[in-house]
């Protein structure tokens, strides 16, 4: 598994993909931070210690929806297209190891993407502005778990196609669907809505962004990732069984 993680990291960073995604994320996050901060400072009367971060975390989540599919799109689609997947299958590696190795590599890139944004609160503490550290950490935990769920979803899609572009587009659409599925409250009955809101990835993030950690949300997000990863392993297995290149 270590072999796969290292290989994927080499691919991420030597193909520049990871650099581009991280740079875009930091650039756009920085812009949001600047405008959120200005908004809070100019409007006044808001809770800067918590409210600012609630805004900022929601904005970063939004950027992740559009950027994380780029990190997962090539993980399997490219191996399928190149034919290297069949070569991996001749090594003494299990499908679970291949899937987890790729997933952990993408999680590491996610960490590298999120970590530098801690510079924003660090800057604020320099100016003696109030920062609720505990709440902020809860928010980052939520952001990481949410990103982990996005990546798991992206890996599955990538294992189902030879086309990176298709993988990214489908992943993005799925994530969007998981976001907006609870929006149309008027159109569905209360029972359906309650089911949908349990399924919605994004509704799981609200408590985190307000600085709380609800174990149900943590469990849900972890379970969501686990289900998609297990599904990916099954998809690989069935592909192998059918004997397609």
């Amino acid at each position, binding site marked *: 598994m*270590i*072999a*796969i993680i*290292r*290989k994927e990291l*080499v*691919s991420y960073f*030597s*193909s520049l993909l990871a650099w581009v995604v991280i740079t875009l994320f930091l650039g756009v996050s920085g812009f949001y931070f600047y405008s959120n901060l200005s908004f809070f400072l100019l409007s006044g009367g808001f809770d800067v210690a918590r409210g600012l971060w609630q805004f900022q975390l929601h904005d970063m989540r939004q950027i992740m929806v559009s950027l994380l599919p780029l990190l997962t799109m090539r993980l399997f689609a490219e191996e399928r297209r*190149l*034919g*290297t997947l*069949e*070569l*991996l*299958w*001749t*090594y*003494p*590696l299990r499908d679970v190891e291949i899937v987890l190795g790729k997933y952990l590599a993408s999680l590491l890139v996610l960490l590298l993407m999120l970590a530098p944004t801690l510079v924003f609160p660090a800057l604020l503490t320099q100016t003696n502005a109030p920062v609720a550290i505990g709440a902020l950490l809860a928010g980052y935990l939520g952001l990481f778990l949410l990103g982990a769920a996005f990546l798991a979803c992206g890996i599955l899609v990538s294992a189902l196609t030879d086309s990176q572009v298709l993988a990214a587009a489908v992943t993005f659409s799925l994530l969007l669907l998981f976001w907006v599925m609870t929006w149309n409250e008027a159109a569905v009955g209360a029972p359906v809505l309650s089911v949908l809101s349990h399924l919605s990835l994004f509704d799981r993030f609200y408590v985190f962004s307000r600085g709380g950690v609800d174990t149900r949300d943590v469990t849900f997000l972890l379970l969501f990732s686990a289900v998609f990863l297990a599904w990916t392993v099954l998809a690989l297995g069935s592909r*192998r*069984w*059918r*004997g*397609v290149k």
Partner: protein
Amino acid sequence: MIEVAHLTKEFGDFTAVRDVSFTIAPGECVGFLGPNGAGKTTTMRVIAGIFPPTTGTVRVAGHDVQREPDAARRLVGYFPENAPYYPEMSVEEYLAFVARAKRLPRGVRRAEVERVIGATSLGEMRRRLVGKLSKGFRQRVGLAQALLGDPQVLILDEPTSGLDPEQVADIRELVKGLRGQRTIIFSSHILSEVSQVAQRVVIINRGRVVAEDRPEGLARRIEGAVTVHLRAEAPESELRALLSAIPGVHDLAVTDGRLRFHARDDAVVREVSRAVTAQGWILLELSRDSLSLEEIFLRLVHDGDPARGAA
């Protein structure tokens, strides 16, 4: 070393390989011959553990590829057709990755990578990205990854396809150099190549084994595999009568003042020579041409009667 028993592989409705059986002894170098789509690649992929057989069993050194996939895979180095590669990795990075993926012990990985770089003459290319290499070098990288860990069995799927003649010769020499200690299966649709490299040839067509023999033995399998030209100082009609009476002489005809006939093998030619001289006639010419492997191959494949070729 490799035992394939009643291997059948179906892809949906399509049967790629049908009841194929053969065994390969340790240290043997076997050529897989057959037209495109004959089932060579499918058979090799099953042996390499890429996908399981639909029915039948494949064992590598006694390990069932389906029941003990890891044990079997550790013994096999596989070179897939067209040598797929990761374009963004350097030769060294790629081989280091494969060494880890093959679970070579930490202490020997570096030495192994060096060894296969040396064996495939990739030294000057080691820091180049695989995607930037010429096709010939990429094939070498493919061979290098198969050789990592010094597997006892090498399965090489069309290692020379798509190369220019010089590169083909290079790769062929490389494969020749690997014979001896290792068991090698390599596929090709180029017949001369197989006859040069392999000790034994398995001919596959439409998912079945059509023939299996040493390259020269294949020729003997076919009635009239040897074409004989004969000129003698003798009355023609008597000579013809004499030759027709010898079993194993076929298609007797006169061309350019010479008698020409097909014989099953050299024993028939000897018999002919003895019979002619026994009559007190003078033998002016007795020459034989074997059918080329190409002709044998076409006959076996197109005559389509497996019972005739298979032992």
